[in-house]
């Protein structure tokens, strides 16, 4: 294959990755923005979403599309429920102290991972795509499902954006983000907002996982990479800024795709992690964030 088509393939792979990454990272960013909690267990919520998708699709009779749609509805609700429970039982009792919550979410990470290993087992298992359809380019064929992932992610992200900017609940969330005490003074139930935001962040990770699972199999250790990459995206985009997160997801997803295809995935990750560390040191508001 010539360089041009090869680059196109790399960019398309990068775009799929960027779409899923954007969903996962927006969940992480939302939780950090509103609650000031760095959720190290975010990758495990992603993993739980994928595992839940496997259970739902293998339990549903009928064509794969039915099971897939069911998974798309059930997995985020289930994972969001677990997250809300974790918020009530653990994070709330720590009073959302930043350092204590990091240690606690590390504990949560281990517990969720082990639970998945015990219940789901150590194997990677595939989930059938809801439809088989190939787009034939002059140089190579490409999976239509992957393009569907990009559009689905874009639709969910638009919905999240509308929810945050246009709905009353979104308004309450943003008010809590800006000033928690003042929000409470105005009669907002901050505890419930926090539980809702934590559940929503985890649910977004679960949606991303359900979308990716027909491409990449469900495995109990699959949470590591999305966690690391979401961190990278959220930090480069500016902690808590949704627009920055989107731009950074595109940037990281595309460059990761290109570097992984032409060089090595490990090298791509080394560069990205070092880049993030340097961004945090020299430009803590993120590349796209405004100076405080």
């Amino acid at each position, binding site marked *: 294959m010539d360089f041009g088509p090869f680059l196109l393939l790399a960019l398309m792979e990068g775009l799929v990755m960027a779409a899923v990454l954007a969903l996962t990272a927006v969940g992480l960013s939302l939780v950090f923005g509103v609650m000031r909690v760095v959720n190290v267990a975010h990758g495990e919520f992603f993993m739980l979403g994928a595992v839940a998708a496997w259970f739902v699709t293998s339990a549903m009779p009928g064509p794969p599309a039915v099971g897939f749609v069911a998974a798309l509805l059930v997995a985020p609700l289930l994972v969001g429920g677990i997250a809300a429970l974790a918020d009530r039982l653990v994070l709330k009792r720590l009073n959302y102290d930043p350092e204590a919550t990091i*240690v606690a979410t590390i*504990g949560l990470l281990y517990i969720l*991972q082990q639970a998945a290993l015990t219940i789901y087992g150590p194997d990677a298992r595939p989930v059938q795509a809801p439809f088989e359809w190939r787009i034939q380019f002059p140089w190579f064929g490409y999976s239509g499902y992957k393009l569907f992932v990009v559009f689905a992610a874009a639709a969910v992200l638009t919905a999240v954006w509308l929810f945050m900017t246009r709905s009353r609940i979104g308004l309450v969330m943003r008010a809590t983000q800006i000033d928690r005490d003042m929000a409470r003074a105005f009669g907002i139930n901050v505890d419930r907002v926090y539980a809702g935001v934590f559940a929503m962040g985890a649910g977004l990770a679960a949606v991303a996982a359900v979308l990716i699972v027909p491409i990449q199999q469900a495995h109990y250790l699959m949470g590591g990479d999305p966690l690391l990459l979401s*961190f990278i995206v959220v*930090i480069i985009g500016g902690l808590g800024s949704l627009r920055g997160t989107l731009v950074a997801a595109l940037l990281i997803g595309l460059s990761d795709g290109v570097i992984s295809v032409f060089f090595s995935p490990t090298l791509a990750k080394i560069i990205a*992690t070092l880049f993030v*560390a340097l961004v*945090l*040191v020299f430009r*803590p508001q993120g590349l796209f964030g405004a100076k405080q």
Partner: protein
Amino acid sequence: MKALALHLALIAVLFALQFVLPPYHHTNIVRVMVLAVFAMGYNIAFGYTGLLSLGHALFFGAGMYTAGLLATGEGTALLALPAGVLAGGAAAFAVGLLALRTAGVSFMIVTLMFAQAGYLTVLYFGAFTGGDEGFVIPNAARALGPFDLSTDTPRYFAGLALFAVALLANLALVRSPIGRVMVAMRENEERSRMLGYNPFTVKLFALSVSGLYAGAAGAAYALMFGYVGASFAAIQYSILPLLWVLLGGAGTVLGPFVGALLMFYLIDLSSSVTTAHQMVVGVALLALVLFAPKGVLGALRDRGLKWLP
């Protein structure tokens, strides 16, 4: 005085213990002593200076790989051990120069990212490091002068010597003026700055000493147990010292040892019942942070043993 006596007594007990322990626990205690040195280093940064790092696996790994690669290559163990110690210190110094410009949550993430980059680098240069599988150090390369670390008794003595030196140095450090300044940084950075101390240099010093400890533990672990692998540079080995220190009591000299010992045997005992080690680690972290944020010795210090350093 009481404190010094207590620490010397612990070393004496560990010395005597080797004559009565069955072989299995004999090896375990050596392991715990070396890991306790790692935890002590972590405690100097986290417990005393208030630097919550999530990247100490980098320093441990730097010591381990430097020592392991030198011992299997041209050098001898006698050279590899101090080189490993220095590598850990140098890595911590370099990370500190950048990471200490941030604080709190950012500091945690920056150290995490540097450690992750280090871990991925080990994987990337798999041709030299053996990647995920790691490599075994041949027994011939593990002789520290006349002491062959691949045999039980010299290994125990080497572990005990390292532990004793590290423990007494730690005690001396926290009682010295610079140790007091480190605690002052943890308690109130602004006020310490007003009193004329430079937070950056004090923290850099603490982090570098912490790195020297971690490097020493990593190098000793490689030479004593003859295996170097990427899993020792992975995130798990940044979390474990945090767990040990939290369990034993942050900001106490003996806490890291107590934490490492308890956790080691907790996992050891639980593995006869269940294979879910990770669950034990996770539940322990949650329980500590929720119910006992001061750890075992921290709680004892609050309840009467005020002299505990």
